[in-house]
């Protein structure tokens, strides 16, 4: 939980910090990650390369050792040849016919054996057993008796016989000889054959001190840091390692696979590379265990250089990151300044940096464009609001219709003075009806019947005022009378027909008002036989162009259009001097 809250806090601080800090931090994290990853990869490859290199060089060492070893063993073999192929020895062995040593023969054999001891410095002892188990032996530190009854009982005897005079190398004479001092040596065992009939004449055992071989290893063991030993194909130590045998048994022996190879193991807390090869002349395995750290010192220094390069790179890249952050954040800060101005209502475009063409400049251009658009938008909204307010005012004015009211009041006054009570009553009633409906306490929606009544009242008033100068005919379908419509949807059209169509006409006029249902629409038609309109005027009304001639039709069209959300609710057909037909089509309201 504590870690989680800590992470959250770090996250919060990061989120709240400014862009430059974020970019820098981002860079830093990336560089650290990249640094460790590349260092890791480098090290991995480096280690492999080092191991390979070390294995090659140590392989060369092992092959050299192998050569020396073989040279030595070949020499021992050569010395054994001196006995094997000697006529005198052959004859002497052939002539042994019984147990018990013939002193002459003993003397002869001893001479050869001593020669052998003397010629090969690393030969510690030589044993010769004839077919009657007579033993002739010479040793630098004395000779030892057999541990078995007969030499034929030795476990390697059959193998040696099969080799038919060729060489057999075993460890410590294969336990055939007594070994009180636990000396370690390698024994060459060879069956001496009769050169005439290839019968067995004797068994020769030549012992070589292990120490003598190990001495050779020590010369190249790098002051005891490297360890070498030899195993035969049964895993026995031909020469013993000078490290803990348990470690060898546990960590090295199981990994010796194939004829040669290498592997790396941690031994006594240090990395050791084990390199092994199979000897050229026999099936022994020569193993070298060498410290990897020592041999990879030169490679280490290379990796230090790599680290230095990486660190330098990181520093340069980090500095680059800081510059990049500045490069980006500086213009952004500038933009912020301009945005603050906008907050205060100052729509100022910012200068575009002409010397660069990157995203920043596009941002600046986009910003400027946006500012321009916002400005026009605000202007448009203001204008629209003006139009809406004007329309509201117009509606109010058309509802109250002051000039109509004034004129009618004057007419009432005149009628009263004239004593025409009937007409005065009629006109007053009609005026009341007209205003009751057209104001209708602020309601927007009335029935068709109410609208028609409003028109009828209006017409009655005009009839009296203008002395029946025109006639109005109604043709309203019964079914639509109860339907709801926008208030004063029709009255302005009648007013328009009367004022612009008929009053300007000589003689009496005629207005027809039709209302019917067509599918889901209500259609109203107002037709007059007045002076008509020019096409120009029709276009002005249809295209929302206000003209001073009278807002009646124009604002009516606009009001219906806005209220019903229809683009063209009104269509006008007119011929000058003949008349006008105006059609309103509106959907039936629920």
């Amino acid at each position, binding site marked *: 939980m504590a870690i989680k809250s800590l992470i959250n806090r770090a996250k919060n601080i990061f989120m709240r910090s400014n862009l430059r800090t974020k970019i820098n931090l981002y860079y830093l994290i990336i560089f650290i990650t990249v640094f460790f990853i590349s260092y890791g990869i480098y090290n991995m490859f480096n280690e492999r390369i080092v191991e390979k290199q070390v294995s090659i060089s140590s392989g060369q060492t092992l092959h050299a050792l192998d050569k020396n070893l073989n040279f030595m063993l070949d020499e021992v073999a050569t010395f054994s040849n001196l006995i094997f192929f000697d006529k005198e020895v052959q004859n002497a062995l052939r002539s042994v016919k019984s147990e018990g040593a013939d002193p002459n023969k003993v003397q002869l054999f001893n001479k050869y054996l001593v020669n052998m001891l003397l010629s090969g410095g690393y030969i510690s002892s030589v044993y010769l057993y004839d077919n009657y188990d007579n033993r002739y032996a010479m040793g630098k530190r004395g000779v030892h008796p057999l541990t078995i009854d007969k030499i034929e009982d030795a476990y390697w005897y059959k193998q040696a016989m099969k080799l038919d005079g060729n060489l057999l190398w075993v460890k410590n004479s294969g336990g055939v000889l007594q070994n009180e001092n636990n000396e370690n040596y390698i024994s060459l065992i060879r069956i001496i054959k009769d050169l005439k009939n290839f019968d067995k004449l004797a068994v020769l055992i030549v012992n070589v001190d292990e120490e003598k071989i190990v001495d050779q290893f020590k010369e190249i063991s790098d002051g005891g840091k490297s360890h070498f030993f030899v195993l035969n194909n049964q895993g026995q130590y031909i020469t013993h390692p000078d490290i803990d045998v348990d470690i060898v048994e546990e960590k090295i022996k199981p990994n010796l696979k194939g004829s040669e190879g290498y592997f790396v193991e941690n031994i006594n807390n240090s990395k050791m590379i084990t390199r092994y090869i199979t000897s050229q002349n026999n099936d022994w395995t020569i193993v070298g265990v060498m410290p990897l750290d020592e041999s990879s010192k030169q490679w280490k220094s290379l990796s230090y250089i790599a680290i230095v390069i990486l660190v330098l790179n990181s520093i340069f890249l980090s500095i680059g990151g800081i510059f990049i952050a500045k490069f980006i954040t500086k213009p952004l800060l500038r933009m912020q300044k301009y945005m603050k101005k906008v907050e205060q209502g100052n729509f100022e475009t910012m200068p575009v940096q002409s010397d660069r063409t990157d995203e920043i400049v596009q941002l600046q251009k986009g910003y400027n464009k946006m500012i321009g658009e916002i400005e026009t938008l605000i202007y448009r909204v203001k204008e629209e609001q003006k139009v809406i307010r004007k329309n509201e005012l117009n509606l109010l004015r058309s509802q109250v219709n002051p000039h109509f009211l*004034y004129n009618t009041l*004057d007419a009432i006054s*005149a009628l009263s003075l004239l004593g025409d009570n009937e007409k005065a009553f009629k006109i007053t009633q009609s005026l009341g009806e007209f205003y009751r409906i057209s104001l209708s306490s602020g309601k927007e929606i009335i029935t068709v019947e109410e609208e028609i009544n409003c028109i009828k009242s209006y017409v009655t008033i005009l009839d009296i005022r*203008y002395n029946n100068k025109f006639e109005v005919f109604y043709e309203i379908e019964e079914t639509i009378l109860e339907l709801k419509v926008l208030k004063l949807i029709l009255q302005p059209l009648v007013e328009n027909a009367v004022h612009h169509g008929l009053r300007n006409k000589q003689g009496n006029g005629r207005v027809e008002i039709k209302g019917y249902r067509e599918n889901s629409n209500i259609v109203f038609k107002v037709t007059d036989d007045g002076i008509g309109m020019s096409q120009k005027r029709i276009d002005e009304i249809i295209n929302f162009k206000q003209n001073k001639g009278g807002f009646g039709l124009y604002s009516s069209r606009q009001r219906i259009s806005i209220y019903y959300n229809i683009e063209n609710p009104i269509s006008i057909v007119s011929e000058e001097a003949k008349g006008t037909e105006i059609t309103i089509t509106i959907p039936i309201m629920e």
Partner: protein
Amino acid sequence: MDTIKVLVVDDEHLERALIMLGTHWTENGFEIVGEADSGQIALEKIEEEKPDIVFTDICMPFMDGLELTEKIREKYPHIKIVIITGHREFEYAQRALRYGVTEFLLKPIKIEEIAKIANNLKSEILREREAVEEYVTLKEQVNQSRNI
């Protein structure tokens, strides 16, 4: 010779009636010389009757009150023209004055206003007539003394 001739112009007969019935014209030294329901007829009547005051509605078909005023002013600069209007805006009044309108009678008509405006105009007209008469007398006297 002392009566003031009045012409009433309006396309609504009741409006004309209201003006004509609105005050005791004859008792006060006025004479309604005629009424017209359009500007055209009004001009004809002016030619015939030579009125001193013309009451005209502003809103009429074919020729509106201001146009009529302009036409009257061309030929008869001394005729007093009273515009009957529902408009109360200052700009509108200024425009009307530029056309040569003498007075305004606001709708809906307050009956006393008719007499008041008429009387004001009457005294003005009489003053003007006196001035003209004085001028004529002086001129005659000058002519007479020249003859002597």
